[in-house]
């Protein structure tokens, strides 16, 4: 199953993270949407708190979502707290869509600062920490792909202000 094959049900993913008490900051397309750009995304991108106990909770949440590793050469790697720090970026496929777990993002602050500055959004009864708009823009500028630059243009477009 390729990453884009499973329709993204981000709510189920966010609920699983909340249920397992995972500390994280939501970045990427879902954060772009939360900050007001009307576009779609196919995966949930997040930066987890790096402490081993949190990575244990994240691994449990990923297993509860039937996640599979997509990183080339790592497809058979069991998901646990020991494997998570081994790569800067882990890509997972789940029946609820793709999840990218990133420990570092170019242009991004350390997790502790991102978390402190995050926008806390209520989704039903769960709290979703979403990266601060300025931090998101810095990450997008550092990444620099056409889609990232288009996101920045949209998020900062004065014509979009009411």
């Amino acid at each position: 199953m390729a990453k884009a094959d499973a329709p993204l049900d981000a709510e189920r993913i966010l609920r699983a993270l909340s249920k397992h008490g995972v500390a994280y900051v939501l970045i990427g397309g879902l954060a772009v949407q939360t900050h007001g750009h009307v576009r779609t995304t196919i995966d949930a991108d997040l930066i987890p708190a790096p402490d081993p106990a949190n990575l244990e909770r994240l691994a449990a949440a990923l297993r509860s979502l039937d996640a599979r590793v997509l990183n080339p050469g790592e497809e058979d790697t069991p998901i646990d707290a020991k494997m998570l720090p081994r790569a800067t970026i882990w890509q997972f496929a789940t029946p609820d869509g793709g999840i990218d777990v990133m420990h570092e993002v170019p242009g991004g602050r350390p997790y502790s600062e991102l978390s402190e500055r995050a926008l806390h959004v209520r989704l039903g009864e769960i709290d979703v920490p979403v990266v601060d708009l300025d931090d998101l823009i810095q990450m997008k500028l550092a990444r620099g792909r056409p889609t990232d630059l288009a996101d920045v243009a949209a998020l900062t477009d004065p014509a979009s202000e009411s």
Partner: protein
Amino acid sequence: MSPSVETLEMLMRAMGKRLELAVTPPERDYDPAHRRVAAARSPAERLELGISWNRMAAHLALAGRQARGEG
């Protein structure tokens, strides 16, 4: 940047042309009116809507692939 502005200018001169740089806004791939509507919503409403758009877009893409016989 490759080629550099200097190199490009030199090439233009060699071709008997003069390089002029201009900045114009790119074509938007979104409607600013939609952005304005989104801006009027709370972050929680925007996240909820985003989640439902993603779900709908993925289902439409899947339905499209199936309709085209692509699996």
